[in-house]
């Protein structure tokens, strides 16, 4: 069984190696390299997905140790295997893989979305000369994410965590010819790195306190409460970085500079959810540290409402979805803070499905229109019927309308928050309800502005890299439509599996949140009906500009952090050039100047030399006589 787990992780890795090294071996044409890269990308991914399903079935029939966690009834089995234990001299590192209900839940999401994205990319990245490296990086990312999911040791988890960050950087900057794209990649890398520092130290604190990095050992160890609070707060920094939570949320909207399938896979469904997954994985430790959960709750409450308001005002379709991702991740964080990892994981899986679907559909729309901006879209309902229906399912799930999956998972989250304890609970609950309304509003706005109203297709000038598709009036090729269609199924129906997983719908809170969401959507609809030409975001009034700029957080960070750091860096460069190099050059110049004085004596008159010799001799003789 452990071999199967290892195979699930290693197959995409092998695909990445093969994709990077072997796509152009012996191929003469670009076409052949492209086809071979596509096979390398899809075949191992499909094998990995099949193995994951097999593993899930095996775990469902297995009998493991009952840990009293939420997945114990559904997937009771568990597998754990240690390859070797690395002696470090102090705390040993064990190369352990484990699979239990939680890992398999997240693992299924990862392999399914990754496979859908790989198939989609074959169509989306046609005529792209760097497609082989792109698909290899996606495979590498999949492997890293699966390593995080199946890690049985915190250090192993951290390895996958960092490789994910690297792949995210590489793929955001896929079209690095455009300066803005590579800047966005660097920003994403640096901001997540800021959180990762805290994450690594959190792991160290936990490992040192527990005497080992194995997750089971850490969770069973008797760690003093102060240490636990410190460790979980440090881990929370990494979680905020990866999951784009306040205050490290600024990188995610800019990360939309990458190709749209990447946004679907990395920046919507999997990597950004890894932070939530890690908290769920170490949940007993977080439960034993209530201050951390309070901090998480406040962070989530601020993030969900702020990001939803920002999403309402964006004009770029992908940025709308990016802010909505931040907002939905904050929901999961709030559910965790309220004490329900079950609701958080449920929302994680359903959000992964419907947000990946939304991004793939957004890619179809962008592919068709040749622009990211909503103001360039409109009236696409008849031109793109398949995309319209799949994206409608996605938006319904996002807004939490029944019977889509989002309704059930969001209800689970809201009722978890309602039942939560802690000093910040009323604040979080109010923020969550408000966010439900705003979510309905921005989902309705994007839906209406994209698919209804007057068509605004116009011949565009030469499109910039990233949207380099010429309008041809037809819907996308089937390799792009099929993944969206397949993902629409779980986005629509996954919620019905909720009761099977032990999530019962609480109809009271569900009715309230549904009413709020419909209210938000209704206001936008009324505004849009009044003037289909105009953007319904005008209902924000004077707050529209701050919302569009995401409350100027970027400007504040630029003033508080970026500019001082740049100034410091420039100072260092100047000190290096003036002081360090100046000392070296100055010593050279001083030597030359001094030797110029000595050079005056070398005038070629041999008698002068002899005179000097004699004078020296006399001096030595006199000194010898006087001093002895």
């Amino acid at each position, binding site marked *: 069984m452990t071999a199967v787990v290892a195979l699930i992780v290693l197959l995409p890795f092998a695909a990445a190696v093969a994709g990077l090294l072997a796509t152009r071996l012996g191929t003469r044409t670009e076409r052949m390299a492209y086809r071979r890269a596509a096979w390398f990308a899809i075949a191992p991914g499909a094998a990995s997905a099949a193995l994951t399903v097999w593993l899930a079935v095996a775990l469902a029939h297995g009998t493991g140790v009952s840990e009293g966690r939420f997945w114990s009834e559904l997937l009771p089995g568990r597998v754990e295997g240690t390859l070797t234990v690395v002696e470090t001299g102090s705390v040993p590192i064990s190369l352990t893989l484990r699979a239990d209900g939680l890992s398999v839940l997240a693992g299924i999401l990862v392999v399914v979305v990754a496979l859908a994205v790989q198939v989609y990319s074959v169509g989306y990245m046609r005529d792209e000369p760097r497609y082989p490296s792109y698909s290899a990086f996606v495979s590498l990312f999949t492997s890293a994410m699966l390593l995080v999911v199946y890690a049985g040791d915190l250090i192993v988890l951290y390895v996958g965590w960092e490789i994910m960050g690297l792949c995210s950087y590489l793929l955001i900057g896929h079209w690095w010819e455009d300066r803005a794209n590579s800047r966005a990649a660097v920003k994403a890398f640096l901001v997540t790195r800021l959180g990762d520092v805290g994450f690594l130290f959190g792991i160290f604190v936990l490992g040192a306190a527990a005497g080992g990095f194995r997750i089971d050992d850490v969770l069973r160890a008797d760690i003093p409460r102060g240490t636990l609070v410190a460790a979980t707060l440090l881990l929370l920094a990494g979680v905020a970085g990866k999951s784009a939570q306040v205050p490290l949320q600024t990188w995610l909207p800019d990360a939309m500079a990458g190709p749209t399938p990447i946004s679907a896979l990395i920046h919507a469904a999997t990597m950004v959810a890894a932070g939530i997954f890690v908290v769920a994985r170490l949940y007993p430790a977080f439960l034993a540290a209530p201050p951390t959960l309070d901090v998480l709750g406040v962070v989530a409450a601020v993030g969900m409402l702020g990001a939803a308001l920002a999403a309402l005002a964006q004009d770029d379709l992908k940025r709308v979805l990016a802010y909505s991702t931040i907002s939905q991740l904050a929901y999961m964080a709030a559910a965790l803070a309220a004490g329900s990892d079950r609701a958080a994981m449920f929302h994680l899986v359903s959000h992964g499905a419907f947000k990946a679907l939304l991004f793939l559909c957004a890619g179809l729309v962008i592919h068709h229109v040749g622009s990211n901006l909503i103001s360039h879209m409109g009236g696409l309902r008849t031109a793109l019927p398949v995309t319209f229906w799949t994206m409608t399912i996605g938006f319904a799930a996002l807004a939490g309308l029944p019977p889509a999956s989002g309704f059930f998972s969001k209800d689970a989250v809201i009722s978890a928050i309602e039942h939560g304890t802690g000093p910040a609970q009323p604040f979080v609950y109010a923020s969550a309800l408000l966010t439900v309304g705003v979510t309905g509003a921005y989902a309705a706005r994007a839906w209406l502005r994209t698919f209804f109203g007057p068509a605004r297709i116009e011949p565009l000038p030469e499109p910039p890299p990233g949207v380099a598709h010429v309008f041809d009036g037809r819907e996308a090729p089937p390799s792009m439509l099929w993944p969206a269609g397949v993902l629409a199924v779980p986005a629509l129906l996954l919620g019905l599996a909720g009761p099977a997983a032990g999530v019962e719908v609480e109809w009271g809170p569900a009715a309230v949140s549904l009413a709020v969401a419909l209210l938000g959507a209704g206001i936008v609809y009324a505004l849009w009906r009044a003037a289909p030409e105009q953007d319904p975001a005008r209902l924000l009034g004077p707050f529209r500009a701050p919302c569009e700029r995401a409350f100027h957080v970027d400007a504040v960070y630029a003033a508080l952090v970026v500019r001082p750091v740049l100034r410091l860096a420039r100072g260092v460069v100047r000190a290096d050039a003036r002081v360090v*190099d100046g000392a*070296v*050059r100055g010593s*050279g*110049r001083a030597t*030359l100047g001094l030797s110029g004085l000595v*050079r005056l004596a*070398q*005038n*070629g*008159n*041999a*008698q002068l030399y*002899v*005179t000097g010799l*004699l004078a020296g001799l006399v001096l030595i003789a006199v000194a010898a006589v006087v001093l002895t």
Partner: protein
Amino acid sequence: MHVVYPVVVSALLFSIGVYGVLARRNAILVLMSVELMLNAVNLNLVAFDVWLRDRLHGGQVLTLFVIVIAAAEVGLGLAIVLAVFRTRRTVDVDRLRALAEVVRAPDPGRPDGEGAS
């Protein structure tokens, strides 16, 4: 005879030799001054040999060596002076400055190697 007389004479001879080497311009006279200094040394050697009653007469033997070497040196020196005269038409020591370092004008292109780093 007291040893002080030959020592004083040799000191005088040596001083004259030093003055000649340092002050004369004619290369041949400089060579002669060197001979004077060598002979002052010879005088010292012989005088102290006698005064110390050295049984092996090391001073006198050394004097013979010095005379031979001085003869060879003068031969070589005169040959050099002749060669110099043939090429330069002068034996004025002050004007024979080929050993002086040639002072280059500072090159504006590479001030003291700056910009090479």
